[in-house]
């Protein structure tokens, strides 16, 4: 890992100025663009659609990326890319065309119901997080909230790197299952 990519640098960036924040987000996008393109190639058939999607992802990163936790910024980009690719598919459907004909923009609007559902999902996630085994909770907390690397976590807890990674991954899978129930 290069020094510029370390989570510790991400943590220091909490006190950055607006210009520094924009520069950092631009750098993250450039680093991730190739992976995003590979990811989108599995979801969108045409290169032009991938380019359009990447452009939207970049704009959203500049607009809203500042509020995202540094540790989750790359994941956030993939989620935006995934949502945007799905939206592109929907825009090709007849229903979407009809919606657009009646003046809709196609951009999802955060209505009160959606906001309430998101808040409820966050609450469910908190509860599900509490029900995880202690050792898994510890890994999640140190990685996402404390922003330590997996190597640092493994050193701190005296466990192999692979164990730390596996606990984190299983925690994510369990949370995903709990939320989908």
């Amino acid at each position: 890992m290069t020094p510029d990519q370390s989570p510790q640098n991400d943590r220091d960036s909490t006190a950055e100025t607006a210009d520094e924040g924009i520069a950092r987000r631009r750098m993250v996008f450039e680093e991730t663009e190739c992976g995003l393109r590979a990811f989108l190639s599995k979801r969108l058939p045409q290169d032009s659609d991938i380019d359009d999607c990447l452009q939207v992802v970049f704009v959203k990163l500049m607009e809203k990326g500042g509020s995202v936790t540094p540790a989750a910024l790359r994941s956030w980009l993939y989620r935006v890319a995934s949502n945007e690719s799905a939206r592109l598919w929907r825009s090709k459907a007849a229903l979407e065309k009809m919606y657009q004909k009646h003046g809709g923009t196609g951009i999802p609007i955060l209505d009160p119901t959606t906001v309430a559902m998101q808040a409820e999902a966050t609450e469910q996630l908190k509860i599900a997080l509490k029900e995880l085994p202690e050792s898994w909770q510890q890994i999640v907390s140190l990685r996402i909230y404390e922003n330590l690397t997996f190597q640092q976590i493994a050193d701190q807890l005296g466990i192999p790197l692979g164990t730390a990674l596996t606990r984190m991954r299983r925690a994510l899978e369990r949370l995903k299952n709990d939320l989908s129930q």
Partner: protein
Amino acid sequence: MHSLNPNSNEPRWGDVDLTDDCKNQCLQYLLNELEPDQITLFEEKLCNSERVADELQRQAEMIVKLSEVAAVSEASAKDGTPITVPHVHRRSQNFVVKAVWIALAVCIGGLAFRTWWSTTKPSQEQEAANDNLAGLLIENDATTATVSEFTLIARAWAASQMEKDRSELADSTPTGTDVQFINTLGDELEWHQEEAEGNSEEAFSWMFTAAIEIHEVETNDG
């Protein structure tokens, strides 16, 4: 997640069950912990395997959700509480318990006030009713009724006014006596208004009695 691409059902190179190592690589890639050469290899794999893309998407989704919980926790930390998710849940529980206690206290207070009001108000109503009853009893020549001071004043004033009225009608000469009568009436009203400032119900009772008295006199004349 299933691909939205209709052609994606065709088997592709590398589209096999993911190993734990591969899944761990997804995690490290998303959390920016791969070396540059590992990143290149992983992105090649991502380009060729839909399962890798799906796994990446699943993990990305959950990491973002967890970071949103972290954002809530950090907001709580600014208030001086430590960043632990279970504690955030406990805070919300405490808030709900406090809210319930406050609501309960307000309900009990309201109930007590209403009980006190219902025991106090009927006595005032009873007093007013007694005044009205007194007027009616006088009208019926009942001598043993409990008569209030205002009722007696009302009866006397009504009798005098009717007497004056009758004599003025007999004269049938519109002179300055009309003005004098109005002035007298105004003075009487002012006096009674001052008297009745503290208790509007008593003032009403007085007027009511006077009106009955006047009506009685007119009826007897006719």
